[in-house]
């Protein structure tokens, strides 16, 4: 059994769209279950009283990272066939910063705004329109920004290559960093008066106390 299945010709483009839809359903399901259809829940991350965004995101990163690493090690998954977005350092740094601004201003990121919109959040629907408008502006301005867009090109680059460390060592470092982060996150939530894990309660409790 060779993975990625699609890259080994297990099915064609049309079937891939069905796979996309099914994977999307599961993706949307877990985002909503985590509470990420709610802007208030999401931005709590930035007011340090509910760090569910960090916890969910890093648990997901660690889970998928360990899965791909071990499947690669076992020879089941050919990691070189997995698509990685090439690194363009400067636009990615600038884009990340602008996206971070947009996150705390708008209350969502593109994926979570879809879940918010699907569960009736009118602000999420307006937010999606905003994303479309921003995308259109980038498209129209593309000839102007193209030199910056293509700057800092480093190609397909991974952290193990940057740090000159074996892949498994970086995996271990990320796991340790995540665990440290989780301990810190729990401590911050306790300090914010959240109590037993369920983060959103902290925000509500804080509001009630005001």
């Amino acid at each position, binding site marked *: 059994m060779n993975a990625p299945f699609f890259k080994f010709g297990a099915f064609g483009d049309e079937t891939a769209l069905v796979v996309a*839809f099914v994977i999307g359903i599961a993706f949307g399901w877990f985002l909503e279950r985590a509470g990420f259809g709610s802007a208030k829940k999401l931005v709590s991350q930035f007011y340090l009283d509910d760090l569910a965004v960090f916890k969910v995101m890093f648990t997901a990163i660690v889970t998928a990272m360990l899965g791909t690493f071990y499947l690669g090690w076992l020879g089941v998954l050919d990691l070189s066939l997995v698509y990685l977005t090439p690194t363009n350092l400067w636009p*990615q740094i600038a884009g990340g910063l602008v996206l971070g601004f947009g996150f705390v201003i708008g209350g969502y990121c593109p994926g979570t705004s879809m879940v918010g919109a699907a569960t009736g959040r009118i*602000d999420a629907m307006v937010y999606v329109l905003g994303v479309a408008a921003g995308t259109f502006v980038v498209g129209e301005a593309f000839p102007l920004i193209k030199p910056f867009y293509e700057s800092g090109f480093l190609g397909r680059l991974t952290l193990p290559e940057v740090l000159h460390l074996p892949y498994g060592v970086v995996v271990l470092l990320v796991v340790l960093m995540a665990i440290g982060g989780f301990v810190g996150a729990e401590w911050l939530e306790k300090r914010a008066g959240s109590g037993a894990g369920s983060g959103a309660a902290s925000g509500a409790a804080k509001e009630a106390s005001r």
Partner: protein
Amino acid sequence: MSTVLDPAASASGRAHGSAHDSAHDAAHARAAEPYMNPYVAGVGLGLVLLAAYVIMGRGLGASGAIGSFVSWLTGEIAPAHAEGNEFFRGYLEEGAGHPLKAWLVFEVLGVLVGGFLSGLLAGRVRATVEKGPRATVNARLAWAFTGGALMGVGAKLARGCTSGQALSGGAMLNAGSWAFMMMVFAGAYALAAAMRRQWR
């Protein structure tokens, strides 16, 4: 509005019109269930991402679907203009025969369905505007559009958003994704104090 997503309300029981319910809550058929434990949800999300890598050889995404949609719409309204623009043309040539037959478009359609089903089963689907107790609805919607527009610009510059870069690239130890992710948190924390009035 502040009680809409309050798990404490559901902990007090689903009984409609119980003594705990504010007038606002009483308007709803039932209280929302509490959210899933974040670590459990994270493992679930991680397994979905792993499945995408194993089955497709690619990660998850979201902003790319909006790129496809915007490019398709531009092409419908002004075909020559869209074809003459490198950015829009890239999306128009991407789909399997049609710009909207793109992988991320179908994935995002799934996200809408999955998010709706999860919300429906947990009693969390309702027409509302999420905002802080001091924010007005109009201000919140204006900020939502502004934030979305910034997100649209940022995601295009960065070649992906929190889904495609931070989550998907993060798990594959993609160097650019990690640089991006650090900057997302830096940007959001930098403006958190300035936006406090809208949220707290």
